[in-house]
């Protein structure tokens, strides 16, 4: 079954609610190895996104995602704004004009988003960033969709891979972002960006 515009909007609303609920947790992860603002920043950004959603209620999915991107760029603050903003902008461009998303479109959208984040942050896997959650999620989604899995099954696999990827950041040495200034002391902490990325994917379920 394809995901329509209403599914996308419902996902964004669940994402906003989850980020609001988890804001203190995300900020506490960021306090350990960063600047202790990730939860607050993401919550502020998605609050602005939710306020913007009514203006694109009749738009195609690409336009909705691009609007999310531009809103995040200007409201999140810090590096996460440009990173998540670029992800949504690229996904929106890749899905321009779409009224419904087939499983293959989910792969196209997530691939564009991950590529955008990697280019913007000049980041690869293994550097203790959101890429460590999103990269494995994309691989899992791609594999499931190629094997003809249902949308639900493919998303379940993507979320599981993202959450596994998120925990692999714990022993990693940060070489990107604020945590990289901590050097060896960044080891032993879960990356807040990988955590919010996994959370965003998790909220795609039940859609």
């Amino acid at each position, binding site marked *: 079954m394809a995901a329509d515009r209403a599914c996308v909007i419902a996902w964004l609303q669940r994402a906003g609610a989850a980020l609001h609920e988890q804001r203190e947790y995300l900020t506490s992860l960021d306090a350990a190895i960063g600047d202790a603002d990730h939860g607050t920043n993401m919550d502020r950004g998605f609050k602005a996104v939710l306020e913007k959603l009514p203006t694109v209620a009749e738009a195609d999915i690409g336009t909705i995602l691009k609007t999310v991107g531009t809103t995040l760029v200007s409201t999140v603050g*810090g590096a996460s704004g*440009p990173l998540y903003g*670029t992800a949504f902008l690229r996904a929106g461009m890749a899905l321009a004009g779409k009224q419904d998303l087939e499983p293959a479109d989910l792969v196209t959208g997530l691939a564009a988003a991950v590529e955008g984040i990697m280019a*913007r942050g000049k980041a690869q896997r293994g550097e203790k960033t959101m890429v460590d959650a999103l990269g494995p999620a994309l691989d899992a989604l791609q594999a499931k969709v190629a094997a003809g899995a249902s949308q639900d099954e493919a998303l379940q696999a993507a979320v599981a891979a993202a959450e596994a990827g998120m925990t692999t950041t714990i022993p990693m040495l940060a070489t990107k972002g*604020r945590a990289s200034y901590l050097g060896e002391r960044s080891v032993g902490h879960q990356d807040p960006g990988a955590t919010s990325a996994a959370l965003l994917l998790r909220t795609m379920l039940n859609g």
Partner: protein
Amino acid sequence: MAVGLVVVSHSAQLAEGVVELAGQMARGQVRLEAAGGADDGTLGTSIAKVTNAIAKADSSDGVLVLVDLGSAALVAEMAIEQLPSARRARIRLTSAPLVEGAVVAAVEASIGSSLDQVAATAEQAAHLDKLSRRA
């Protein structure tokens, strides 16, 4: 007019302070703009502040953008990409050290050097030996 300078910092006070210090060397010949702090004034970076500062610093001779930490570079890069392409070509982001880079860039810009020269001088500031200079 001369090449303009934009100082991007997570701290509004730091950005203002660097502008003040570099401004002393520029003798009123250079447009120096601070883009410090998040939109609400707390520690952070703001695309809107960077965009506005670039607009104010921009004469037809170009702008050099200096940053304090990596995420400020990321934000500045995005602000520059969003400019119309005609203007984007004369805006340059540098990895130069914030304080020394701004000071030497201000001097270089004040004598009417090109954006390329100002950027090269700022980058060389990474190798300045402060202990032998003592001034």
